[in-house]
């Protein structure tokens, strides 16, 4: 079990630093098709922000803000977004994750629909990876209780 740190420098720096990490993770997720990155990488950075909070502020404080129940819900939402978009393409009449078929229900061209579909899948993967990383880390910290 991780206790809270006594050092005021580490606590303050990490508290100021965490929002910037999360904004940078969102940038990596949203900008993933123009630059290095994408859903998985952005999710890992987002989870690293939570791991930094657990290390410096203690597990109890972090669980008060972001509980385990909420973590499970986020994990399920991420998987649901990913497989939901894939199954939606399957239902409309294409292959699994065939984004260009999304232009039948969205008022855009096929190329734009493909870009939007990739963005949606990346958001789903990012949410799922963030939740799973936080859950694995808190399992390791508490010894699987």
């Amino acid at each position, binding site marked *: 079990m991780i206790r809270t*740190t006594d050092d005021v420098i*580490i606590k303050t720096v990490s508290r100021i630093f965490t929002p910037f990490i999360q904004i940078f993770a969102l940038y*990596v997720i949203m900008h993933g098709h123009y*630059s290095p990155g994408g859903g998985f990488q952005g999710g890992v*950075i987002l989870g*690293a922000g939570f791991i930094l909070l657990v290390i*410096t502020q203690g597990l109890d404080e972090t669980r008060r803000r972001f509980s385990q129940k909420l973590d499970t819900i986020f994990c399920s939402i991420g998987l649901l977004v990913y497989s939901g978009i894939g199954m939606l393409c399957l239902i409309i009449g294409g292959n699994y994750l065939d984004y260009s078929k999304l232009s039948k229900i969205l008022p855009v061209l096929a190329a734009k629909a493909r870009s939007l579909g990739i963005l949606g899948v990346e958001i789903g993967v990012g949410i799922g990876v963030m939740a799973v990383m936080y859950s694995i880390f808190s399992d390791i910290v508490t010894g699987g209780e």
Partner: protein
Amino acid sequence: MQQFFLIVGTGLCFLVLLCLYRGVFGPTVLNRLAGISAIGTKTLVILLLMGFIYGRVDMFVDISMVYSILNFIGTLAVAKYLETKGEV
């Protein structure tokens, strides 16, 4: 200008080797931690120099920023582990 970046990058690679010596043969665990942290900082600068050499520094800024964030969190995690185990 690319020649200059190449020379600076090679010099930094030599400095990484010196830090690696401290990381492998360090007398105590804190020496190893400081050596590995210094390697991370030098790797960040080497990545940016590679970006200048290839002419795509906008891509390499993202990579080096992620590297610095993970280096910071990793150093803190190892320090926390040593504090919890009471080895220092």
